[in-house]
Structures are given as C-alpha cells and as structure tokens.
C-alpha cells in the first residue's frame, strides 16, 4: 500500500501493431512489483475505471487500462466513444486480445516489474478477462460478474460463450458475483464453477447475497457497499498471492 502514485495517459503498442491510448497508474515507492491490466466496461474508458486503475497503484501495483475504443473514436468523450463503437458492432474478441496483450507487455517492460501481470474486468470486461486468461500469458485473472462466459448466448448476441476456451485457461481465476444478478445468474455461476472443477483449473468464487450486477460501481444504483468492500479485499489477497 502506498499513497505515492503517478497516473497519466500513455501510448502503448497493441499486439497487432496499432498504437492506442492507455491510462497508467504506478506505485512510486513499491519496489519490485506486479502489474494489473484493467479492462474497462462497455460504457467506456471512463472516470470510474480510471479510479479503479489508480486504486491498484495504491495497492502497490503498476496498473494500466487500455482504451479499447481508441481505434474507432480517438479523443472522444468516453460515453460518445462507447456509443460510436456500439453502433459499429462493439469490440471484437481478437482486438481485445491484442490490446490486453499489448498492455501486459507494456507492464512487463516497466523498470520495476517483477514479470507478473494480472487482469481484471467488470461486466462485459469480466467475460473479456476470462477470455484473456485463456489465450494470453497472464499470472492471475479476476472476473467480476461477466456474462456470456458459459450458457447459451441470446439470439441477438454477437458474442460466443467461452466454453471451448476454458480448457486453455492458463492462470488462477477469481470470480466475484452477485446472487441477485440475472446475467450471469447463480445457475450460470454454478455451471462455470463446475466446468472449472472438471477441468482441474484453479479458481476461487465468492458470491454475495443482496448484490446484483455491477455491485462494484460506486456511481450507479447497483453499488453494494458490503459486496464491493469484501470483493476488494478478495482481490487484494488474490493478487497478493499470485502477483508477488
């Protein structure tokens, strides 16, 4: 834990060679440290996601949030960028993997990196965090109420579930879910838990009564103080174990 952090906008190279914007927060006096890639939610590369990124720096990590909407809407206000990208079909999975891979490489290139990098995502980013953990060299992944990881996607969805990706999960997974959530429902969380058990994949799930989707978001009506506080403690412990 440190009070001395530096946060700024940087340009990073995505794996596909595209330069994209990212928000970097670093712990200035934490010694050798791990890194965290924060995947922003569908509403965008916004203030609340940058606050999360800074919190990881306070916890002693180098943290970075790539702007997944930079390609389509460089420099746009976050909600405008989110709307523009949505109208174009959203961020596809291959781009997500390129951008997270680029962000992880950027963190591993930092002067004080210990070489370990975790990933975390919320909502749509929860699914993307699991996707990244199945295909990239990462050391720990956190899925906060990601939908469409398992189960049958609704007909109108243009995203597949990740059932066929799960055998490739390459790092421990922490899952945080609300028992009032409708997507993923508790039954879908049970299914994911069982599939990971069957595959022998290390994972740790925590589920909160009275909490629904988006319980980590302090600027939304879905915020749950008790679930968010406990969730942050779980994340701190999990990353402390796997990124040290």
């Amino acid at each position, binding site marked *: 834990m440190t009070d001395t952090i530096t946060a700024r906008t940087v340009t990073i190279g995505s794996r596909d060679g595209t330069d994209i914007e990212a928000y970097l927060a670093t712990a200035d006096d934490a010694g050798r440290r791990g890194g965290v890639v924060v995947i922003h939610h569908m509403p965008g590369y916004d203030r609340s996601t940058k606050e999360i990124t800074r919190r990881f720096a306070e916890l002693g990590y180098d943290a970075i949030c790539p702007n997944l909407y930079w390609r389509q809407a460089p420099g*746009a206000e976050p909600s405008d960028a989110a*709307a523009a990208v*949505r109208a174009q079909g959203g961020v596809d999975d291959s781009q997500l993997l390129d951008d997270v891979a680029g962000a992880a490489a950027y963190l591993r290139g930092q002067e004080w990196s210990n070489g370990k990098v975790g990933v975390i995502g919320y909502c749509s980013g929860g699914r993307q965090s699991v996707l990244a953990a199945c295909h990239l060299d990462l050391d720990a992944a956190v899925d906060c109420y990601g939908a469409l990881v398992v189960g049958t996607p609704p007909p109108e969805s243009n995203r597949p579930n990740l059932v066929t990706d799960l055998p490739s999960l390459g790092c421990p997974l922490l899952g945080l879910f609300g028992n009032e959530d409708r997507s993923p429902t508790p039954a879908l969380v049970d299914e994911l838990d069982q599939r990971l058990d069957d595959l022998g994949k290390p994972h740790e799930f925590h589920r909160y009564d009275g909490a629904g989707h988006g319980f980590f978001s302090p600027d939304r009506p879905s915020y749950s103080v008790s679930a968010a506080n406990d969730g942050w403690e779980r994340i701190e412990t999990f990353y402390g174990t796997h990124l040290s």
Partner: protein
Amino acid sequence: MCTYNTVITELNGSAKGPSSKWFHVDHATVYYDHPVHAMAGHALNIDIADPSAGPGQRVALELTAESARALVQAIEDALAAVPPEIIAAG
C-alpha cells in the same frame, strides 16, 4: 448485464446537439443496456447521431423501459392526429 443487442434504424431529420447547434441526422442506434447517467441498472438508450461529424455529434437519451414505451406511444399518438394528406405533403 451487457446485452450487446443493438438495433439501428435509418432516419431523415435534424437534431439539436452539442453546442446547441442543429445538425442533420440519418440514423438512430437503440439498445437496452447500462446507462451512463440515468439512475437505473439498465435503460433504453437512443443515440441519434451524425457519425460523419465524429463521435460527439449525437443526441443521447437514456429512458426507463416504461418511459420509453410512453415515448413510443406519444409519437404514435402525435402522428395519428395528423391528417394523412399533411404527412404525405411532407
């Protein structure tokens, strides 16, 4: 949840948007998902935009499902009250 479901419809008209300037609009994006500003977990979101002028050139609405249906009904009622020959005349 993030629904990913997005409905796009063509439009022909004008909207008053950023900097109180009027601009031509040719499509609307409609989806039920997390709002940015409305105090609801999910909302019916409408972006009426001119993408050729950049991502910021849009009018955005975030409505509860109930109020979105009320808006649809109000539009239908307003159109129903107009003599067909006036609508045909444009």
